[in-house]
């Protein structure tokens, strides 16, 4: 496993240098920042102790869960962008930008998931974990409600001939508001969990 870690470090270094030579500075910085956030313990151990820490079952389990979350997110995002509603967001964009955005967002989901499982969740109390689950559920529900409300608004407006107001308000005001509350609440709890000392 140490050979694999060394391989990943060397590959990341080569890719970073390649990106810098191609003047892709933002991508290079993202890669370096992501690597430091994810693997600062390994880097620190390499510098101080001259060896990599073991990749034990907890680290493997957290990595697997983060990969699963990233994959589920990418599958969901792909499905959404294939819907007529999702295509609105991509019609004026080049394919390469859409793909880059999708993969960057997936990478971010992977990164946040890993940091959450590895650093934040073990330090959070049961109460905070339940609140976080509640906020994340609210976010998922608000996205689902948004899609359903847009669909129903269009169907009812099309059939009746007048602008349907209830689902319009739900889609334009209530669902985004719930999503904003969900994102802010989740982030606050996540950061508090990261900053907390192990109890």
């Amino acid at each position, binding site marked *: 496993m140490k050979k694999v870690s060394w391989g990943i470090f060397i590959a990341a270094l080569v890719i970073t240098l390649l990106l810098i030579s191609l003047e892709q500075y933002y991508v290079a910085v993202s890669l370096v920042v992501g690597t430091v956030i994810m693997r600062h*313990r390994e880097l620190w151990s390499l510098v101080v102790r001259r060896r990599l*820490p073991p990749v034990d079952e*907890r*680290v493997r389990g957290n990595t697997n869960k983060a990969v699963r979350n990233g994959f589920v997110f990418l599958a969901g995002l792909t499905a959404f962008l294939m819907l007529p509603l999702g295509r609105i967001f991509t019609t004026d964009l080049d394919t390469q930008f859409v793909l880059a955005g999708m993969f960057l967002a997936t990478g971010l989901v992977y990164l946040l998931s890993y940091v959450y499982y590895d650093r934040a969740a*073990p330090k959070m109390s049961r109460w905070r974990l339940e609140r976080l689950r509640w906020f994340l559920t609210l976010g998922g529900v608000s996205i689902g409600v948004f899609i359903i409300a847009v669909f129903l608004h269009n169907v009812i407006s099309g059939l009746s001939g007048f602008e349907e107001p209830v689902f319009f308000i739900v889609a334009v005001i209530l669902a985004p508001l719930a999503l904003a509350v969900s994102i802010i609440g989740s982030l606050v709890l996540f950061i508090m969990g990261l900053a907390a000392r192990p109890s």
Partner: protein
Amino acid sequence: MSSMKTKIKEHRARRRLTQEKLADIVGVRRETIIYLEQGKYNPSLRLAHGVARALGTTIDRLFVFDDRDGVPPD
């Protein structure tokens, strides 16, 4: 869900082992030992066995489950 308490800290202190030393012996990270001591990580049977052996005790003496809503004690 039944909650878990461990006596790793007591056994480790008795053997005068630091978290880092125990982690080295078992072949895991120090954070894993920290979370095990706090009962915030459920180890695999293999890891539990490794920790118990490193501390010269048995799994059932090291990990104590609160079975109020879990498997009833025999």
